[in-house]
Every structure is written in structure tokens, then in C-alpha cells.
């Protein structure tokens, strides 16, 4: 079949065709559609699918499934790999049993990401895990298949790393169908020698991993996923991911006929292909977005193969923000001396239109009241729709870090000052990583006020279910995990659950709790306005 697919849809199609049996992950941008789509088709295709509470529990669920022999897809956004890295590294040592592909969606340009412009490819080095980089939806499909093939062949997990402009790119994709009769039933056969990273076995495992990686490297050297164009020139380009498409565009724009090597295997680095490409070149442009990992590899390789090679990369391309074909044109113009002019109109000085709370959003009843009642408080901001509190007209965030960090940092400020501190986090964030921070604050006798913005769903990433709302990704009804019950169990004594539309109750609760000597929590429970409208319209 051939259809227009979003990059993330293509990944789902490939996982279906490859016979995936188990899908877990945590929603984020630009990866969330993978779980969303799988959730809708899981039951009919005999797949078990879940939104896990965070990326670590998600990856670990996937590890359990792989060890039981199932084919697994784990999905997350860039920062998710930080959260799950503690279990990701030992997974490289143990290796997989059932094949496993881990999708990681990076967001250069921070379109939908706070915290940092992370280049997750770096985890390849830290974790020693093969990384594939697709450029378009067809490659999203092909490389998901390839990832399963590599994982199956070498018993290693494979990371499929895409960026926003790949995961959220649409184009026509050829795809196959799923074979019928696949079910998510495996068997765990005890084998602690493989599944437990107990030293001194850990060291042996590391050696085994290094040997496997050498085999994967040899496989990568022969793989058709890396493409070399046949053109001859003393100047060449090496590109990866979306940059490859920008390079082809730039060459057409400038009427240049330069050879291009597209590296789809980021790790292990296919040395021979690259050495072969650079050996007769005078100059090379390394076109890669964000960090200069490939540039460093190529620079090291050139010392052995072509000492006189001029390597251009971050000296002609920015290390911050997305690349595009114009930036490549400018770089090529500097390298080749060929003129490049773009015909852009002069920039207009217009006020920025920031993201805002939706009409009827329950947070409209929360942010202004907090600001009015506690004008001097330090506000710890968190991830999700909550981020909008940091934008005009609210401008409330005094800190913004990572999932759950509002409370972790608030506790530290509270212990270091005599100031009032309020931590704000959503329901999804509370379940993701708010709970350990809450236990820490209670245990260490801190007293920030925690305001949970419970809009009954994980809203920002596209309305995914979470443990607080009594529904799973596959649509099963389960018991709601109550935030107030967790808070109580963590030892929080001052707990209020209220509807923030009752402004007086909310105001009184803030005033009462702000002067407490122990941790206090106000759970503002009111459904996301978009979700409420959708439920009403069926």
C-alpha cells in the first residue's frame, strides 16, 4: 500500500508489519502519536499497549516483555531517554531476547520542549546502543523494520532517533500489512546469566557487548541504509537525518553537483564507508543538526586516511536551532565560493503571539488566584500545559526544569530561605516523577505548598490517559489512583481537594497552607476544557 503518512504513523505501520507484540512508553512531543495510534489498533491486532507512568517504567515494561520473548516498541520524547537511562545502560549489557526498538523524538528548535535542546544521539556513546537516523516517513518505516532486524540478529536494543521535522513530516510511504494471528503471549525462561547484571558477570557482559557492536558495525558497513551518490568532485558532503534532505535541496538551489554520503547508522559509526568517501576529497561539509558528533568522528578518521582534508561543520553551520536548506546554501557558498542570495522580504517587527490557555481552561481559575493571594511567593513551574504559566500574561515561573522538578527545587529553596514557595504541577507530572519529590520533602521536613493542577488527563501532548483518570491506553476501565490518597500515604498532613472554580475555597486554602510548618498540598480538580467539549460532542 502507498499512502501519505506522518513519520510517527509510518513507525506504527512498520511495527505492525514487523509483528510487534508489546508497546510501552510515555507521551511527549514529537513522539506521542505513536502510542496514541497503537492504542486504537492494539486489541484488534493482538498487541498489548500501555502508557506507562514515566519513561523508566515504560522501558522496564518493555525489557520484561523482551525477556519473555516478545517483540517490543518503546516510545518517548528526547528527555524520556534521560529518565529511563538508568535501566537503558544495563539493557545494552544484558541484550534483548525478543527484538526491541526504542523510539526517541528530539525537538531541535524547542518547538514543544522546555528544558534543553537535547541531542539524544549522545546516548549511543554512553549506553553503547546502535542508533538509526531516518530523514523522512519512508525511512521511518524502513528503519523501524531495520531496527527490529538488527535487534533480532544481534540481540541488542536499537534506538530509532528522529527529530520533529521527521516525526512530524508527511509524505507518501509504501508499507506492508500485518500477518494475522500474532498474540502477546511469551514465556520467561530463567537465565540469570543473561538477565542479571550482577558483578563480576557485568564485566564479561561488557566484553560481549563490545564484540556484538563490532558485528553490528560490520553489518552497518554493508547496509543500504547508508547512501553514497555516484557524483565525482573534490568537495563532498556527509549528512544525516533531516539535514540530508536540506542538503539535496540546497544542491538543487545552487546548481551544484557534489557527491553526498548519507549516514543512516549513527552508531556504530561505519568507518569504512566514510573512509572510502573522504579519501580522495579536498573538502568535506558535515551537515548535522545540533551537536557535532559525526564531525568529531570524521575528524578523527581523517587523521588516518586523509590528513590534508578540510573538514567544515560547526564552523560554517550553527550548533543551536534547526538547520534548513538556506543555512546549508550559505555554508556551501563559503566552501565553494559560489554566490548565494535569497530573495527574502525585510523582517517585520511584530509582537510575538505566545501559546495561551484555552478558553475555559481550569488553569484560568488557578494562576491569577495564586498570584493575587501569594504575590511574594517563589513559583516553581513544571512541564505540560502548566508551562503556559511562564508566558504572558501570567509570567509566573521562577524556575522551570524537568518533569516533577518544581517540587524538588521548591524543597531546596524552602530549606535555604525563609521565603514562601509554591510548586505547581499537573496530574500527569505528579504520577511521572512528582511522588519521589513529595516523599523527599515530607521526609526531610520541608514545607513548600504543592498545587496539583489536576485537569483529569495528560493534556499538552494530545490528551493521553494517566493513572488518575481510571482508563488505560487500550480503553479498559481501571480504578482511579487518587492523588490525595498518595499524598496521605506519603505522610502529607495538610491536604485539600477542591474545584478551583470555587475561588473562595481555593483562596482560603492557599492562605491557610502557606503558613504551615509541614508540606501542604492543594489538588485543584477540574477537567480540561478541550476534553470536556469533546466529551460533550461525543
Amino acid at each position, binding site marked *: 500500500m502507498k*499512502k*501519505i503518512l506522518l513519520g510517527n504513523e509510518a513507525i506504527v505501520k512498520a511495527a505492525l508489519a514487523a509483528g510487534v507484540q508489546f508497546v510501552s512508553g510515555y507521551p511527549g*512531543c*514529537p513522539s*506521542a*502519536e505513536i502510542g496514541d495510534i497503537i492504542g486504537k489498533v492494539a486489541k484488534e491486532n493482538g498487541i498489548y499497549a500501555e502508557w506507562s507512568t514515566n519513561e523508566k517504567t515504560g522501558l522496564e515494561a518493555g525489557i520484561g516483555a523482551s525477556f519473555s520473548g516478545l517483540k517490543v516498541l518503546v516510545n518517548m520524547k528526547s528527555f524520556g531517554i534521560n529518565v529511563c537511562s538508568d535501566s537503558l545502560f544495563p539493557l545494552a549489557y544484558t541484550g534483548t531476547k525478543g527484538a526491541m526498538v526504542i523510539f526517541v523524538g528530539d525537538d531541535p528548535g524547542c*518547538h*514543544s*520542549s522546555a528544558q534543553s535542546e537535547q541531542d539524544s544521539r549522545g546516548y549511543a556513546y554512553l549506553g553503547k546502543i546502535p542508533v538509526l537516523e531516518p530523514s*523522512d516517513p519512508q525511512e521511518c518505516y524502513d528503519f523501524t523494520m531495520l531496527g527490529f532486524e538488527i535487534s533480532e540478529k544481534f540481540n541488542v536494543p536499537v534506538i530509532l532517533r528522529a527529530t*520533529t*521535522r521527521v516525526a*512530524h*513530516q*508527511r*509524505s*507518501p510511504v509504501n508499507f506492508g500489512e500485518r500477518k494475522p494471528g500474532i498474540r502477546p503471549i511469551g514465556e520467561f525462561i530463567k537465565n540469570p546469566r543473561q538477565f542479571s547484571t550482577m558483578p563480576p558477570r557485568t564485566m564479561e557482559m561488557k566484553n560481549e557487548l563490545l564484540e556484538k557492536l563490532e558485528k553490528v558495525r560490520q553489518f552497518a558497513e554493508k547496509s543500504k541504509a547508508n547512501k553514497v551518490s555516484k557524483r565525482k568532485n573534490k568537495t563532498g558532503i556527509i549528512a544525516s537525518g*533531516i539535514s540530508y*534532505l*536540506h542538503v*539535496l*535541496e540546497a544542491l*538543487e*538551489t545552487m546548481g551544484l553537483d557534489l557527491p553526498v554520503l548519507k549516514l543512516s547508522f549513527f552508531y556504530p559509526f561505519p568507518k569504512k564507508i566514510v573512509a572510502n568517501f573522504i579519501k580522495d576529497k579536498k573538502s568535506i561539509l558535515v551537515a548535522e543538526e545540533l551537536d557535532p558528533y559525526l564531525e568529531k568522528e570524521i575528524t578523527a578518521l581523517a587523521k588516518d586516511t586523509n590528513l590534508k582534508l578540510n573538514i567544515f561543520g560547526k564552523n560554517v553551520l550553527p550548533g543551536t536551532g534547526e538547520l*534548513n*536548506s*538556506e543555512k546549508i546554501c550559505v555554508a556551501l557558498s563559503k566552501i565553494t565560493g559560489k554566490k548565494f542570495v*535569497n*530573495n*527574502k*522580504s*525585510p*523582517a*517585520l517587527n*511584530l*509582537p*510575538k*503571539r*505566545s*501559546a*495561551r*490557555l*484555552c478558553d475555559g481552561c481550569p488553569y484560568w481559575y488557578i494562576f491569577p488566584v495564586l498570584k493575587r493571594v501569594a504575590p511574594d511567593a517563589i513559583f516553581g513551574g513544571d512541564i505540560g*500545559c502548566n*508551562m*503556559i504559566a511562564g508566558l*504572558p*500574561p501570567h509570567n509566573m515561573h521562577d524556575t522551570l526544569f524537568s518533569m516533577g522538578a518544581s517540587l524538588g527545587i521548591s524543597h531546596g529553596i524552602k530549606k535555604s530561605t525563609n521565603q514562601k514557595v509554591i510548586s505547581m504541577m499537573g496530574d500527569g507530572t505528579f504520577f511521572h516523577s512528582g511522588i519521589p519529590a513529595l516523599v523527599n520533602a515530607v521526609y526531610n521536613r520541608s514545607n513548600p505548598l504543592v498545587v496539583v493542577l489536576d485537569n483529569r488527563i495528560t493534556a*499538552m*501532548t*494530545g490528551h493521553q490517559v494517566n493513572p488518575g483518570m481510571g482508563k488505560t491506553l487500550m480503553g479498559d476501565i481501571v480504578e482511579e489512583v487518587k492523588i490525595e490518597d498518595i499524598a496521605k500515604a506519603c505522610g502529607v498532613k495538610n491536604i485539600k481537594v477542591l474545584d478551583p472554580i470555587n475561588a473562595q475555597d481555593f483562596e482560603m486554602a492557599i492562605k491557610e497552607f502557606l503558613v504551615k510548618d509541614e508540606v501542604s498540598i492543594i489538588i485543584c480538580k477540574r477537567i480540561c476544557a478541550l476534553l470536556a467539549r469533546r466529551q460533550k460532542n461525543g
Partner: protein
Amino acid sequence: MDKTFNIIIAGVGGQGIITLLQVMDEAAFVEGFDIKSSELHGLSQRGGSVEAHIRFGKKVYSPMVSNGSADLILALEALEGLRESSKAGKQTKILVNEYFLPFLNSPAKEDIIKQLGETKKDFYLVSASKDCKEKLQNEIVCTLYLLGYAVVKKLLPLKKESVLRAIKNVIPEKYLDLNIKAFELGYGN
């Protein structure tokens, strides 16, 4: 068509940009073109400025329209139309919905329209939202209205039949009739 056709859709998150993009992608696919498009999800969908890119032709590489190379800028909101006009080139046609979503410190609507008129581009101002609200009691389908207008005025090289087929392929059954009506309303304008 020898040259790749480049479209930028501009608007405010929540205006239905992705649905419009899906219909246009599909229409180009129905006509047998190669297509690449790019969109943004998440934070950017929550009422901020959003732009989506569509490129179709014989063979398309990058999913992004480079500065100055747009053939059509289709804006669902006036200020966002003006904002994107800075990316226009000599050949760019600008189609703007006469609809304004003000925010803190935003310029007056009259000034925005005046500035748009001064861009010296082929500029079309259409009251899509108003017409859709009056005649169809629904504003969100102004996207399909604008597409109908763009097709009839030949602002983009897609045939009416292809777009109608695309609408049927993309839009859920429940909203199909409404979307076709909006398209026809724009087409008949």
C-alpha cells in the same frame, strides 16, 4: 508542472491547520505528485503562532519552504498572515482570512490589513470565517472555504475534483458534509 509548488499555511494554534494540511497533501497525492509537508504539535498548538509547510511536485526533498520561495501563503488569521509575509518572494501570492484574534499589545486590525496591502504582493483578503459562521454556523471550516477560494482563483495548481476526493479521504464521515459545503462556499465566492 516542472517546478515544486511551495505553500506556507499560517495561523493560530487550534484553528485547524493540520486538517487543512492533510486535505491539501492528499489532493496533491491524488494528482500523483511527490509531497513533503511539515507541521508542529504540542505547545505550539495551544494558541500560539503556527506555520505549516507543504511542498509538492515531481520530486521533493526538504519538507520546509525556504525564505522567499513560497508560491502561496495561506493565512487563517490576519496578523499571522502579515507575520508570514516577511517570508514572501516576488512570485508569492498571499491569501488571508479576514479574521483577527487580538492579544496583549497586538496592533489594530486596520493597521494589519493596511500593512498587508502595502506588501506589493498578489494579496487576497477573504471573509471566510464570517461567511462560514453566517451560512454554516461554524467558523473552524473556514480552512476549507479558503481552499475552495484558492482553487477557483487558481492560486494553487490543484483541481477541484482532486480536492473533493481528498476531503472524502481525510475528513471523518460525521463532518464530511459540513466540510464540503465550506469548500463549495469558498469555491463559489
